[in-house]
């Protein structure tokens, strides 16, 4: 498995996975913190009751929900699509890496790239907030919690999209579903959480650590049980479907 992961990391160099991830991370961070430099927002910076950090986290949640489903779809599709060309599945299988192993290795390798990327993204947003001049002290708890859950959720969707890209050769299906998912993720932020929990992409809203109630933005704790349940479910389903990939004939 370790060798398979190293192999996947080597494949990424020619796929330019690194530059794509960096580009999108910078874009999301810029979009999340753009409002920090506007006049209206600046007046709230010295006022602890206005909770400028929670408001920033909420904007960040919105932008991450809008872009992460598509980002994971694109990364997974690129990493998996290459196996469809030139009988990659067969070649890897003769070298001892069955399609199931290959798919699991792809998810692990992509997660290794995504972990520093998501952490960097959060740090950039915090950095932009500080640079814009937020004076209220930062409570790191919600930020660390949100970043961790965002990463875990991205891994879950990477798994879904690697499987989709491996089973459906037409990459339009995987990337298209990622795009519709991004739409749903952004929209579920406006829905009650009872509904968001029933939609897979709704979990980008369920993990939100900040919420708006009327005009007041405040930190909140997400329902960890539902999130853990969703992640375990995805893990179990992925283990099952990748084992099945080993047995089907291409």
């Amino acid at each position, binding site marked *: 498995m370790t060798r398979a992961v190293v192999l996947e990391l080597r494949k990424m160099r020619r796929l330019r996975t690194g530059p794509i991830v960096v580009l*999108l991370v910078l*874009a*999301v961070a*810029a*979009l999340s913190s753009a409002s920090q430099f506007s006049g209206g927002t600046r007046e709230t910076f010295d006022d602890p009751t206005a909770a400028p950090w929670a408001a920033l986290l909420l904007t960040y949640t919105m932008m991450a929900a809008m872009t992460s489903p598509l980002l994971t779809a694109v990364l997974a599709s690129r990493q998996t699509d290459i196996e469809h060309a030139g009988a990659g599945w067969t070649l890897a299988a003769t070298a001892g890496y069955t399609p199931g192993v290959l798919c699991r290795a792809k998810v692990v390798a992509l997660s290794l790239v995504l972990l520093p990327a998501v952490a960097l993204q959060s740090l950039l947003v915090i950095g932009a907030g500080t640079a814009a001049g937020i004076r209220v002290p930062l409570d790191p708890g919600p930020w660390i919690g949100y970043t961790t859950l965002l990463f875990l959720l991205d891994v879950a969707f990477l798994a879904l999209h690697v499987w989709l890209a491996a089973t459906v050769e037409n990459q*339009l299906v995987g990337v298209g579903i990622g795009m519709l998912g991004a739409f749903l993720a*952004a929209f579920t932020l406006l829905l009650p959480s009872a509904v968001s929990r029933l939609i897979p992409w709704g979990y980008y809203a369920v993990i939100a650590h900040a919420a708006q109630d009327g005009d007041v933005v405040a930190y909140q704790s997400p329902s960890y049980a539902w999130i853990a349940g969703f992640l375990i479910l995805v893990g179990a389903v992925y283990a099952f479907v990748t084992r099945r990939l080993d047995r089907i004939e291409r």
Partner: protein
Amino acid sequence: MLRAELIKLRRSAVWPIALALPLLAVTTGTINYANNADQLTGGWVAFNSQVVLFYGLLFFSLGIGLLAATTWRAEHRGTNWNLLLTTSRRPAALILAKVAATAVSVAFMQAVLVVGTLVSGAFVLRLDGGVPWQLVVVGAIAIIAALPLVVVQSLLSMLLKSFAAPVAVCLAGCVLGVASVTSVGLRPLSHVLPQAINTRALNLGSTALAGSGSLTPDGVLPILLTALGLAAVCVALGVAAIRRVKLR
């Protein structure tokens, strides 16, 4: 050549996406309008603004990226690219055929959006006032305004062999587009960035996005003229690229 493209398009999987995306926009817009009916009192205008909010900022442009990538995907499979290079037709004809095929599916997407908005507004929300024909006009304008992005995405999909990479580039452009439309400092960029032109076209006469143009010749003509000019420039670039860049 266009006929060949349309045959390829007919059997491709773009239609479910081109149907689902605008329907999702209409559904979310309807739910959002119904939930906030006490705050949104503008009737048709407010409802349409809700429908095109996310759709105009991001997903219309992303949809175009996907549709363009799909029309080129077949040429990057197997040895099809070599086959394409042996054609006796002019490169411009190929590029224009691809652009036209993509534009047909974009037009379909817009038609679904407009019809969906009208049906939902009239029969689900039962909005007062006559059926606003401005919606149809904005829908048609958005198709023309989409042309620069159609051409740009088409070129990216031609040059990048991967299916998903052009869509990622489109997403980065959308992010820049959102920034240029919402911030004052970057406003000039929103007049030339294809994604931002889409956002501005779809939000003509909208109330949800500050600084939207109005549906008058003063607001519409600049968008249409830049769109057509930009599209023409990009087609010329594409013809130059297909001659100079050697793809394997």
